[in-house]
């Protein structure tokens, strides 16, 4: 269980102003909201990548910020983190990148059969063929593949908690659907607690047990997807409608483009 108690964080201007939230074990919670409202900041306070100015975050009752360096490392190994742009290590190939996610630090990057099996399993779990990608450098991978390798690195150590920072940003619809499906599969298979920060409201409603809307540094709404859809709160409605309006506009533009293409072809 993850508990956020009165979390405050400011970078010159306040970003988070008193976040109180509990994420239950094996639950999937999506945090949605406009850009710059502190979604990623909140996620980074979960495993100590950012330290709140005030408040506390506890994982299974243990404070992330009161812990000693070694204890914090232990907490972090329980938590897998999928970065917005994968954050793969440029100088390492896919095998070595995924190996860094293993818990047994001593064995990292050693090609023992056991390590090789774990890495191959993690890559297969994210629908990547180990024999094809294992020796490639991150620069040789597409954006979608990089995100999946980042996901493999996060799950190879069998974490109890998975944090996803904008997992589908910059991906095409096919890769977006693939990542969403993987998030659900991993949850079903590994029974992990997941927090997903996303702009994609449809993805959030599809994969989550609960959705949290963050606006102006505060949680405006926390509840199941059905309640989010049915909410009468004007801010929630405005956010959902804006997404719908944006999608409608996009469809209109794409529709217009395809009509033009049809005309050109004819």
């Amino acid at each position, binding site marked *: 269980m993850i508990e956020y108690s009165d979390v405050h964080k400011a970078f010159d201007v306040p970003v988070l102003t008193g976040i109180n939230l509990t994420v239950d074990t094996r639950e999937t919670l999506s945090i949605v909201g406009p850009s710059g409202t502190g979604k990623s900041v909140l996620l980074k306070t979960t495993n100590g990548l950012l330290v709140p100015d005030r408040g506390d975050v506890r994982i299974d009752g243990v404070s992330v910020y009161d812990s000693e360096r070694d204890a914090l490392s232990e907490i972090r190994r329980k938590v897998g*983190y999928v970065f917005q742009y994968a954050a793969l*290590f440029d100088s390492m190939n896919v095998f070595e990148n995924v190996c860094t996610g293993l818990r047994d630090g001593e064995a990292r990057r050693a090609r023992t059969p056991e390590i090789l099996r774990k890495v191959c399993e993690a890559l297969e779990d994210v629908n990547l063929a180990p024999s094809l990608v294992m020796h490639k450098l991150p620069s040789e991978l597409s954006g979608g593949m990089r995100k999946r390798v980042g996901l493999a690195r996060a799950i190879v150590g069998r974490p109890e908690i998975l944090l996803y920072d904008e997992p589908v940003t910059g991906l095409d619809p096919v890769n977006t659907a693939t990542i969403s499906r993987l998030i659900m599969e991993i949850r079903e298979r590994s029974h992990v607690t997941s927090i997903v920060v996303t702009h994609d409201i449809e993805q959030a409603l599809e994969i989550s047990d609960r959705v949290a809307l963050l606006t102006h540094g505060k949680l405006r709404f926390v509840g199941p997807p059905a309640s989010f859809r049915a909410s009468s709160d004007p801010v929630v409605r405005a956010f959902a409608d804006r997404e719908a309006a944006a999608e409608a506009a996009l469809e209109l533009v794409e529709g217009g483009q395809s009509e033009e293409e049809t005309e050109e072809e004819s």
Partner: protein
Amino acid sequence: MRKLLQKTLFGLLAHIGRAAEGALRHAGEMTRLVWRVVVVTLTGKVALRDVMTQMMSVGVGSIPLVAVTAVLSGVVTSQQGGYQFTSSIPLYVLGSVVTSSVVLELGPVMTSFVLIGRVGARITAELGTMKVSEQIDALYSLGLDPVPVLAAPRIIAGTIAMPLLVGLADFIGVFAGLVAARFAVGLGPESFLFGARMFWHSWDLLYSIAKGLVFGFVIPLISVHMGFQTLGGAEGVGRATTSAVVFMIITVLVLDATFPPLFLN
């Protein structure tokens, strides 16, 4: 008029205050980094393989450029010294001038400039890119500490490699000066070495190596620190790299200026 004066004064004080705050923050962060490097090194958390990799990059990779710089330093010192000595001072003194100039000053300082340009800038850009692309955060999130993985191997490698490079630069520089003296002013090797031995102190070489040790420690220290402090995207990396190079050059020159009063009296 008075208000303008007041505003200017307050602005100046605020600027000085911000600069002092920045300097103190850097000093504090670097002291903490040094402490962490010492702790992880003494507790055996630094992989020998990582240190060796950096030694190859910092040390072996720098040899050609250090050699070229040393040759040019020796040749120029010899030629200019010869030009000045041709009338009144015995020419064999040129051996002492070249040897002392290269060993006491040019060897360590020119080698440190090579290291700043070739290694320091690269370390800051490399770590800065890792910082802005969240690779450093990724290390933390995987329960890995960037200090033993990224910082310590570079600082240890610099501290070991630099004195060796300075020793090499001293030897090459003096030899190049000897050859140049033969062709520029017709001073034979025997006379050159006679002059060099006349004013030679064994301590000079230790002094030179000690400079290399200190410069070899501060150059990667500053570059690693500036890399870790990088903010923003590609522009931030460029800004951090420029700041690091300026910071390293000034630090080396200031340290170089403190050596003679401390060790040559």
